[in-house]
């Protein structure tokens, strides 16, 4: 197996890279059965990709919830509907902000580290060494990280949302004086498990797949130089941000 080395300097190359990324997805999916033999590696990656992102996700979730609470309480009060603050916060979070913000943070925190790690493994011949030990690096290195992204993202989104609701509750109820019962009962009547919460979970799993795919692809195909790895991490953040927002639009159009 030789590494393909795309140079996205020209416009045609960008298209070629999208194509290569798509083919890479099929390779990853094809390697899933083999990677189940390395299930421990997948578990380890869930730890690195997911649990290690918890702190940033929880902090950002809390602040996003507090800001949403402040803004929405202020705006809704003008229409005499401050009681709806909790509902709007929850709906905005579950349907959009939770998955999207978490995916962007995930790309910055976990995506870059996946790209850099795989890129350095390529640069230091670790991937070639696995090939030589008759271990398929696609099944041992790439696919576990891809799967870990799919598993970890929905869980991170749930944590993010829970913290954001808490933040909004602190602002609206404790700080701005909205009635506690009103906050919750309004939310519970208007938020639906399936259309809001579960759809958000599907969405975030898709985002996790996209971010992890791009991160693994960039790391796997980067030129094995320090410059190459640096560019690849940048590209991971840029491409996965674009891909997440575009996919968000498509999924929102089809899911709701």
């Amino acid at each position: 197996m030789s590494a393909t080395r795309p140079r996205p300097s020209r416009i045609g190359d960008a298209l070629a890279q999208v194509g290569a990324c798509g083919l890479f997805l099929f390779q990853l999916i094809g390697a899933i059965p083999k990677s189940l033999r390395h299930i421990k590696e997948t578990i380890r990656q869930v730890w690195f990709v997911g649990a290690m992102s918890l702190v940033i996700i929880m902090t950002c979730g809390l602040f996003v919830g507090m800001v949403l609470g402040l803004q929405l309480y202020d705006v809704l009060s003008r229409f005499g509907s401050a009681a709806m603050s909790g509902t709007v916060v929850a709906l905005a979070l579950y349907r959009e902000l939770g998955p999207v913000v978490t995916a962007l943070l995930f790309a910055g925190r976990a995506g870059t580290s996946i790209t850099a790690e795989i890129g350095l493994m390529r640069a230091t011949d670790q991937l070639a060494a696995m090939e030589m030990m008759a271990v398929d690096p696609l099944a041992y290195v790439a696919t576990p990280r891809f799967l870990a992204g799919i598993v970890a993202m929905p869980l991170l989104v749930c944590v993010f949302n829970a913290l954001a609701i808490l933040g909004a509750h602190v602002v609206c109820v404790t700080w701005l004086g909205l009635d506690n019962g009103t906050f919750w009962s309004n939310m519970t009547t208007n938020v639906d498990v399936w259309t809001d919460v579960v759809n958000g979970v599907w969405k975030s799993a898709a985002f996790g797949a996209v971010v992890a795919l791009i991160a693994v692809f960039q790391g796997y195909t980067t030129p094995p130089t320090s410059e190459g790895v640096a560019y690849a991490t940048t590209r991971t953040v840029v491409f996965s941000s674009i891909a997440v927002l575009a996919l968000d639009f498509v999924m929102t159009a089809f899911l709701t």
Partner: protein
Amino acid sequence: MSAANAPERTDALVQVRGLSTELNGKTIFDRLDLDVPRGKITAIMGPSGTGKTTLLRHITGQLMPDAGEIRVDGHNVPTLARGELFDLREKIGYLFQNSALLTDFTVFENVAFPLRQHLKLPEEILRNIVLTKLQAVGLRGAAELMPSELSGGMARRVALARAIVRDPMLILYDEPFVGLDPIALNQILKLIRTLNDTLGITSILVAHEFAAVGRAADHVYLIAGGKVAAQGTPAELARGESDWTRQFFGGEADGPVPFQYPARDYAADLGFPPSGRTERAR
């Protein structure tokens, strides 16, 4: 170049016939023929950029040649399916130039890696095998260190322990002496010799250092210009009967391998009237 004293075909573990490769528009090999006898240490030498590492990658099927046949233990590598290739690779050890240890595992886990991936051994047996191999390279005490805590020579010895952990029939050494101090160099050299003598492992050694190679190798191929430029025992080559061997082993700056990279007319490049002198192409 005709092979004057080519070993008999039957005892060659690796046979290369008519190998041709082009990489990025540059011809690396041009109908190369080469035999690696079983149970011996064969050195492959040559100026930088002649594709010695590429040859190793051909032998292990990491890179497919444009044409030619590479038989390893009877299997023609370029035609093998991925699964068969992996089966073959389980019998080959490969020592990378930069050791290529897995950075997030300890020394012990690095050496244990091939065993864990391919065999379901009880932990106790696995531990014994790994410690035996580490003892062989003199690093049993370093078992719990991380690769980042090792010096270059130690990392290479760990990589060697990992390469032999499954008792391969063939070991490929890619530039094992580069960047080592004389002590570490001699340690590696001794290991290569010992492994070959005690385990009867066939070895292919790619290196520049003729002094070191001369002490280890049974047979030396000098590759230049995509072909075998000279071959023989180290002593034969050291006598320097051709331009190639004289330049390479004598370490002359100019010769069949030109000092000047092919270029335009020198005077014209500097803006003077052309002198008609161009640097000759290789």
